[in-house]
């Protein structure tokens, strides 16, 4: 059975025919061809597929596309300014070498953006706890923690 789903992705209305069982991440990657959202585990543990749904970070591998009917979705492709200027959180990751292979990075950044909204000046401990749902195999988290602490402060300061 296919169904039509409609939602806003990165500010643009989209509509697509999907099977009922189609995961949101599959819609985003395969039909919308927004391949910055990654699949790392299929079991909702690695967080590489994290996107925002109505402003909250969610794992897009753990809901079906139909559940996002009418929702506002933000993926990593929609985070930088339209002219390509990096968001302060993205810039903090670049400055602090918070990424290596880049595969977990979009999910980590999307999670960090949501976390920073409620934590304008987070402690190291708070940042580490916020990363419970994101696995990174390259960085040892050291520079991810630094990046998020710096990015959150910049975001708070630029409000």
């Amino acid at each position, binding site marked *: 059975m296919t169904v039509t789903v409609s939602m806003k992705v990165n500010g643009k209305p989209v509509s697509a025919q999907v*099977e009922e*069982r189609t995961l949101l991440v599959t819609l985003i*990657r*395969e039909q919308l*061809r*927004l*391949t*910055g*959202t*990654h*699949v*790392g*585990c*299929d*079991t909702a*543990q*690695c967080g*590489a597929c994290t996107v925002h749904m109505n402003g909250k970070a969610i794992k897009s591998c753990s809901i079906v596309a139909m559940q996002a009917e009418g929702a506002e979705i933000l*993926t*990593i*492709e929609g*985070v*930088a300014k339209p002219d*390509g200027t*990096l968001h302060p959180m*993205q810039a903090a*990751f*670049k*400055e602090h*070498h918070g*990424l*290596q*292979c*880049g*595969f*977990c*990075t*979009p999910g980590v*950044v999307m999670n960090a953006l949501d976390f920073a909204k409620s934590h304008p000046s987070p402690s*190291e401990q708070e*940042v*580490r*706890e916020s*990363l*419970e749902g*994101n*696995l*990174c*195999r*390259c*960085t*040892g*988290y*050291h*520079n*991810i*923690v630094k990046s998020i602490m710096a990015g959150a402060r910049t975001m708070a300061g630029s409000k």
Partner: protein
Amino acid sequence: MGASLIGARVERKEDYRFLTGSGQYTDDVALPGQTYAAFVRSPHAHAVIKKIDFQKAKNQEGVLAVYTGADLANAKVGGLPCGWLITDVNGQPMKEPPYPSLAQGKVRHVGERVAVVIAETLAQARDAAELVQVDYEVLPAVVDPKKASSSKPIHDIAPNNTCYVWALGDKAAVDAAFAQAAHVTKLDFVNNRLIPNAIEPRSANAVYSRASQDYTLYVASQNPHVERLLMTAFVLGLPESKVRVVAPDVGGGFGSKIYLYPEDVVVTWASKQLNRAVKWTAERSESFLSDAHGRDHVTTAELALDKDGKFLAMRVKTTANLGAYLSTFSSCIPTILYATLLAGQYTTPVIYCEVTSVFTNTAPVDAYRGAGRPEATYVVERLVETAAREMKLDPVEIRRRNFIRQFPYQTPVALCYDTGNYEATLDAALKMADVGNFNKRKEESAKRGKLRGLGYACYIEACGIAPSNVAGSLGARAGLFEAGEVRVHPTGTVTVFTGSHAHGQGHETTFAQVVADRLGLPMEAVEIVHGDTSKVLFGMGTYGSRSIAVGGTAIVKALDKIVAKGKKIAAHLLEASEADIEYDRGEFRVAGTDKKKMFGEVAFAAYVPHNYPLDKLEPGLNENAFYDPTNFTFPAGSYVCEVEIDRDTGATRVAAFTAVDDFGKIINPMIVEGQVHGGLTQGIGQALTEGCQYDDSGQLLTGSFADYCIPRAGDVPQFQLDTRETPCTHNPLGVKGCGEAGAIGAPAAVMNAITDALGVKDIPMPATAQTIWRSMQKAA
């Protein structure tokens, strides 16, 4: 140009695309007419395949084909080759059983590929794969490597399930030294089996062109040229010129993406059968079941000492589990890359190591970050620390009494260290870790009911395995050089092609720093290209922390040729003698004058050769170089770990971790620190949380991130890092490599700290809360 770019913390060129979701990983590649493959995998560790019924699957909507081992056999698709021939103690070649891409009559580990279903959509392929019926006659499984030699053979050609028994060192001299020893320290331990788990799962997408009769394979690989060489020459029997292999952005490797895998072969072969693009991407459970695993040694190790704590001899006996088949470099990991490292940083005069490598009904085992060297460091550093405790010596002092201080130093296990300063890294680490106040911190922990422990590890690593002829005499079936090409464009910008491959290491930045620094150009004028056999002339890829030492040197050699040719062109333009031309920071100058030509002017003259010595010199400015090192490089370092253990739960927290490394010259300290952070975390993972477990029937018990715990952010501390520098003596950059150090040194440092805290001789890895709690209950 201003200050040198060597040693500068330059932000990475690659970050923009990764941070904006514009990276292009293999699964992101969508080709016209794309189809999708799903593999049917064995649920049994050891079984005879009696019948495969795939008719129902084949009849499903969207299904294009179902292939089994019989189809590959009929097409004469060969088995996967092993890249290193080990010769055993009796001078006989190792046993090399066939490693088919799809099972031929028998399966030998859970997750082995039995059939492949290819369909228009991934969902159709996966649904149809569920309908393939396979009748198995289940056979007893061999799982425990210590029981392998007494079990029925998994492969007909390997009686006792033994691939080889191999040895290095002078056994008689070692036995004689042990007979004279004042003290002998002995440890029995397991170096736990690990599953690499790069966060990007393996993926392969192949397409065949009938028009040009050639293949293009996109694959998550650390070494696309090696993948192509093995696949064309040994498996599919194709000319290399008809196969292009592209390893685009690759989401971490850690060794697991070095190898040629069956799935790569199957999609490539199938793309021609169907005349369609065929893509397969592993689900994480497939990664757990079928990526090459790492480590898995069972070892008895002994150290003989005199009454003053001087090391007299070391004796090591290891059983290495190779799994069900020989993965690409599996045979050399527990031998050539293990026993040769057993001298560590010490003057132990005689060493003997015997390795029995066995087949079991488990996934193949191959190189994983460090590959043999973490296992060797674990042996050496656990022995040294235990010996110090047994002899009531300070573990720092016993190390100082045995450090190698004169270089070059020929070890008794084949390697010759060119340079190092082990005292310097140890002194710096002690200071940085504030070891002097450890007892105060221990008391403070005790007040909170916690046990605090201190552990050291002083590791040595051998990177950039070489030279090719020596490796060849030891059984290597490949060259170990690297290739580079520098293409100067008419306006003076530069594209550099390297045969090494980056999957997180930041070569596009580090290598650009080397090039920009050497030519005196801005970073923006330099582009680094890697990972595509149709662009890069050749390459051995990235493994063993070799990229800057071997790949970087190849680039430097090509740059030297560019400058040499540039001088000839400049001499002509400046009407001077070539011998009088100097090159410095982007300018060709006539020595002692103000006459000069900029790099861009010389490049332009080479491509618009109107005023050019055409009778003596070809136009153009483009140079290749191949570099085959004369020796390994030898990074070394000193690690200090402090742990705090909860008495009630056994849970361990790494309270502090200090690492002082000597990587020789460092190009980009920011990137190097990142490599160390990642390596340390994988090493801490091995020590505390990661342990692959199969049950007695060969079922994988740790098949997801819920059961196999790679460290999360809360499992590791912020690290304290520093470096000391003794430049490598035999490459022009003075570099040694840094990719694996953390994973090599960390497990021993953590376990030395845990055993110190608990006051016990040994604890098995991973030292989970449960393991430690049980140990404490037993002691109480």
